[in-house]
């Protein structure tokens, strides 16, 4: 049986969530592995959300915001953009593979792009296999 990764998606309300809705109204089919959590802006996404998702068993985390320059709040996505490399560095230190956590820009008119991003991300995380974070955490706790 192929491995079906569980991916948590954090989408900004104005561009990406609307883009994901557009994929729906356009009936563009894509992989069912990403479950979406809506936030007002990608700048709201606290790095702890990503860590929490990984600790709770997510195999991947997808963050989507408006394209640079198009943020509903003028520059929230730049804040996410700056925060993201720091988060990635931290994740790398913990041995979490690069493809598991991803930042993408999806506009309100890019239903197809959202579907493509989800499909691509699902494939990449599937190739990596299940995330070891949750299991490792359980082992650590047991040893303590």
């Amino acid at each position, binding site marked *: 049986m192929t491995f079906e990764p569980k991916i948590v998606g954090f989408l900004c309300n104005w561009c990406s969530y609307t883009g994901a809705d557009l994929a*729906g109204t356009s009936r563009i*089919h894509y992989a069912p592995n990403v*479950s979406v959590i809506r936030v007002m*802006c990608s*700048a709201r996404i*606290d790095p702890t959300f990503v860590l929490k998702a990984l600790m709770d068993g997510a195999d991947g985390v997808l963050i989507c915001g408006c394209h640079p*320059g198009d943020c*509903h709040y003028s520059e*929230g996505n730049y804040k996410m953009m700056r925060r993201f490399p720091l988060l990635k560095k931290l994740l790398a230190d913990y041995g979490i593979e690069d493809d598991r956590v991803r930042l993408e820009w999806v506009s309100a*008119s890019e239903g197809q792009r959202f579907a493509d991003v989800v499909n691509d991300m699902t494939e990449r995380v599937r190739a990596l296999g299940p995330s070891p974070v949750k299991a490792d955490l359980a082992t650590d706790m047991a040893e303590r």
Partner: protein
Amino acid sequence: MEEQLRIGVYVCNCGTNIAKIVDCDAVIEHCSTLPGVVVARPYKYMCSNPGQQMIVEDIKEQKLNRVVVAACSPRMHEPTFRKALQTAGINPYFLEMANIREQCSWVHDDPAVATAKARGLVTAATLRVAAHEPLERRSVDMCKDLLVIGGGITGMTAALDLADAGSKVYLVDRDDHLGGNVARIDLTAPYLDSARDMLTERMTRTVEHANIELLLNSEVEKVEGFVGNFKATITGRPDDGKGEPATQTVDVGSVVVCTGFQEFDAGRATNYGYGKLPNVVTSFEFEKMLTEGRVETKEGKIPEYVAIVHCVGSRSTEFHPYCSRVCCVTALKYAQEVKSAIPTAYVSDIYVDMHAFGKGHEDFYRRGSEAKTLFLMYAKNDSPVIRKADPKDDCEMLIEVNETLSGEAIEIPADMVVLMVGMEARADSGDMAHLVNISRDKDGWFIESHPKLDPVATTTDGIYIAGGCQAPKDIPDSVAQARAAAARILGRIAKGKLEIDAVYAVIDEDFCSGCRMCNELCPYSAIEYDDEKKRSNVISALCKACGACVAACPSGAIKALHFTDQQIFAEIEGVLA
């Protein structure tokens, strides 16, 4: 003592939109086992009156204090169900929606997988709603003054309706005159009314109206604030082109964007030879000839053969995929006008499909067909090719058409060719979108709040769009949108006060360390620093709830109402449960 949770979960079938892919009963069964859930029901259309009524009655009878509706996108019906909660007497923010239509049933085809995903989404919503807090909507003043950007037929109509109702309107156009694109046309289809007559009435009233401050040669530089309370900075160029530009800042409650369209650059479609063959002209250039009453070639000759080519830049995979909506009937108008100006002329109308959808347009098409116009059909993406004729051909140009009805390659003589150039979003529509904080679609048109139910509002409350800047449209539709926008705004002005979303950020003074990191981060300068207390503080009326400060606060002192860490954590746990 903490109130005991009593959650109602409602799963909408949406006819068959959800139910044909998602096993709603299985979702219900699963949700019934979640902590706090006392009732879980499906319904055919939850947004219908009986659907809402069911929720209202359950809230009252079962003493529910939280509600989950699993249905379409919250962007669609969140206000509907919030209202239902309010009707039932509980705080509207005790609602959470799970999007199992746009982001589930419509995008997945395996029922088992889609049902599993829906289960996760509804679980997330159920866990989240448990962490919801009651919130109070904010009441703010609604400034009666308004800003209308663009002085075409749409902008003038909106401005006049608003000004007639007693509001002060700032009408801004960057040109030195009113009228926009309509000022460039002669007669209008299908009744052959003069565009000039229509405009003159509007322009005279606009210029003379005591409530309209007309700002020509002007551009809106900045729009700040929020619905009911915008501040717009407008810069005007001096009339004589000399001297310093004058800048003023005005307070307005709403903004109507009526910036129209630009025409497709015919030179981009090289097969027509526009710019190289002197007698290939665009529809707007032809309108100018008609206005001046002189339909003649560049050489000053009366054309014997006139050809009209449809869909230049429209309905093509190379340029714009959409239909520009006005060109077909305008082309029919040209055929009639050429016939009446030059009775001996041969007119050929080279089209892809004849889109004569508007009121009176089909009759107009029939009359055009009877006027001995030669209609030739070509296939989309197999556009005709125009070349210069040989001297022996007795005409200026030859048009090669692969005619689809006869299936033959036909050559048409022409002395003048009119290219029906389509409409496109203005090259700087992106700048306008930034200015007023609205979105554009893939073709550059401004996006409306809802394509059918809310066609003139946008995702930014208080910013409205009307006319050709939203999508290609004719004069009646543009005017209808202008008046619709005006009616929407006047309705809100009539209410006096304005209710805005209760969602904003709050700082807990006890946790704030006064580091001021959030102060600089806020795009709306909504966070002030209290020098005495050495604490930061959110000015809630200015906060637009992006949450940038919340994620950045090193002390965790800032809470994003309705998007708290706790609520989002609950959602994460739910989708991964």
